[in-house]
């Protein structure tokens, strides 16, 4: 592994020792799983809407370049200025140049995972611009100087008490209270002042409609609407995969998204933004910019199998149902996108040298695949990335970077033994005789026996027993 690699094992170990954190996640995810199950109780309806959702995303990806061009043309026609960024540095520079042109000092942000991917807040701060997260969860995480631990519920790792302490410590006018309504009200008061004075509003995009040049945003708190209508300039940032072909593609995807994410049939607000303020209109920004980010996505797009990663509608259901994520939480992944989708997306975006551990943060149980509303074959892609990590190639950045001579030798030896009946029977007979003498302190066995008894080799193999009992061989 390279020096810059992110240590998932170490971070997850810390998370596992935090009983409070484990309890918070177990409760939250159990709740989300059961609420979601109610939303999709009708199997036939689930199968139908899921097939439709997957086909919308597949159709969009099948003509992605064409749709992106159409989106640019229609947005431009509507008065939305479109910018292209191939890297996060470029995207940050574009955002900064817009800010500098309007002499912006304060930005309010609606929720945007792409801006997390860009580390936009830190970048703006470096350039003397204050950037305030206005989604309540994101605001809490920002106060805590942490990363979101879930893509839908950024502060899901914290309980009310922890948030109460944080508010008391970080907000000047705060009185200590564990009353959720009072805490929410406090955050609202802080944010309202900022909405009124912000120079620029930044948002993400849930879907961009190519045929109409419309940006769709779903949210529950109204902060997204505030960020995109109150400040005189609105900048939307999106990954290039977020385009859909037609307006009629929007409802099925939103229905799948909100029900999969928070088990809501629909969110409180669905914003459809199609142009800046027109003459005679009472609200809305004077300028809208759309920054379309590549950051490795066109590389993912180029591989027919890996391309399926780009179907994702960012509902987070795979996280809620992942037995690994629900034990360790999002911070262990140290990535803007944690959980199963993050484990396949991050290595493709940032390379296997840095993120090669993530495809192994998975037991391949397929719970994520079962639940994914757009049928992403997450576990297949996980397997593909494991293979890329040990075999040099050019499909994924850093392929072959986890190749270890010792490990390769072990598997070579394994395949030679298991591919030869004679060698296999010799080896297994030997293990049956001597295997139990192996001390529990051996590597691998030691990890296993920390919480489990030592596996016991049977004195005779099934092969031997079958022979003895006269079970026919052919």
């Amino acid at each position: 592994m390279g020096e810059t690699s992110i240590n998932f094992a170490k971070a997850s170990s810390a998370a596992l020792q935090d009983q409070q954190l484990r309890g918070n996640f177990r409760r939250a995810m159990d709740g989300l799983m059961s609420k979601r199950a109610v939303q999709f109780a009708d199997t036939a309806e689930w199968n139908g809407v899921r097939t439709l959702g997957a086909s919308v995303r597949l159709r969009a990806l099948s003509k992605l370049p064409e749709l992106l061009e159409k989106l640019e043309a229609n947005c431009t026609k509507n008065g939305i200025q479109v910018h292209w960024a191939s890297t996060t540095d470029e995207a940050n520079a574009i955002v900064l140049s817009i800010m500098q042109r309007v002499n912006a000092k304060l930005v309010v942000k609606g929720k945007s995972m792409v801006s997390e991917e860009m580390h936009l807040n830190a970048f703006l701060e470096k350039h003397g611009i204050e950037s305030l997260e206005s989604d309540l969860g994101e605001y809490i995480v920002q106060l805590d100087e942490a990363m979101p631990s879930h893509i839908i519920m950024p502060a899901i790792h914290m309980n009310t008490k922890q948030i109460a302490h944080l508010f008391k410590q970080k907000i000047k006018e705060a009185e200590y209270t564990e009353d959720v309504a009072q805490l929410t009200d406090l955050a609202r008061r802080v944010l309202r002042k900022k909405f009124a004075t912000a120079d620029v509003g930044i948002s993400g995009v849930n879907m961009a409609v190519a045929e109409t040049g419309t940006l769709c945003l779903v949210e529950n708190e109204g902060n997204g609407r505030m960020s995109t209508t109150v400040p005189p300039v609105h900048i939307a940032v999106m990954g290039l995969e977020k385009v859909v072909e037609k307006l009629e593609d929007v409802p099925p995807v939103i229905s799948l998204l909100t029900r999969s994410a928070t088990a809501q049939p629909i969110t409180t607000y669905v914003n459809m933004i199609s142009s800046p303020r027109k003459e005679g209109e009472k609200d809305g920004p004077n300028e809208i910019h759309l920054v379309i980010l590549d950051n490795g996505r066109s590389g993912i797009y180029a591989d027919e199998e890996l391309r399926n990663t780009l179907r994702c509608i960012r509902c987070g259901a795979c996280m809620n149902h992942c037995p690994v994520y629900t034990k360790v939480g999002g911070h262990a992944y140290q990535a803007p996108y944690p959980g199963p989708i993050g484990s396949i997306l991050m290595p493709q975006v940032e390379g296997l040298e840095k993120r090669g551990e993530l495809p192994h943060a998975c037991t391949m149980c397929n719970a994520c695949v079962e639940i994914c509303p757009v049928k992403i074959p997450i576990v297949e892609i996980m397997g593909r990335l494991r293979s890329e990590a040990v075999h040099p190639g050019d499909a994924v950045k850093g392929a072959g970077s986890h190749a270890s001579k010792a490990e390769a030798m072990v598997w070579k030896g394994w395949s030679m033994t298991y591919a030869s009946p004679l060698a296999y029977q010799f080896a297994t007979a030997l293990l049956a005789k001597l295997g139990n003498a192996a001390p529990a302190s051996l590597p691998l066995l030691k990890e296993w026996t920390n919480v489990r008894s030592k596996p016991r080799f049977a004195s005779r193999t099934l092969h031997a027993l079958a022979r003895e009992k006269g079970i026919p061989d052919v």
Partner: protein
Amino acid sequence: MSHDGTISRTDIERPAIERPDSVYFFGTCLVDLFYPEAGMAGMELLKAQGVRVVFPQGQSCCGQPAYNSGYREEALKVARAQLDYFPGDWPIVVPSGSCAGMMSKHWPDLFKGEPDEARACQVASRVWELTQFLVQVLKVKFEDQGPPVKITWHASCHAQREMGVTDEPKALLRQLANVELVELQREKECCGFGGTFAVRHPEISAAMVGDKVADIENTGAKAVVSGDCGCLMNISGALEGGKKPVRGVHIAQFLKERTHG
């Protein structure tokens, strides 16, 4: 790969079949070394239904350990070595949802573009998980001969999500008059084995099996029955390690104990 994102990489059609005269038994490498009595029990259950069971001595492993670790060439080599030993048209019965899933759902892709692809797909199309075969093909009816006992059932991830085996094992257990089956609260949740995952991420795996053990204990069951030896090794190892008075047992062995007692 299938582009509608079905779980299996390539779905091979498995025709509905009549009760055969003979079947092949694929023992799996974990059963071979650690749970041979489960393998023997599986074969005896089949024989008790009047089916001739053939156990090819040349067999070893489906290739899954290497396949899931990213060593696909090595997996292919081992999988290919199996093809010769199942030449007849008989069904291949496997006492493991995981290995059955590897053979029937992943072999077609593993062999894609190889000269023996067609042969591998033909073998894949004949693979059955044991309980699925007992229920769907042999339509077994068991008579319980054991004393009253309370048990619970652990569903393996690959059995349920790759092989589509969900109700069959429980249907078999419910045929046993003196057996009270109490379902786990989180029946579908992975036990944390995941092949090399258990040693690659021992702490997360321990947390996962810890939750599983707690769930099992909450049922008050005397035994946890499962159809996969990987899960069993993990769960019963954790039960033993924690000195819990619950035993882990493979479903084939449990059924055999209850019916031939």
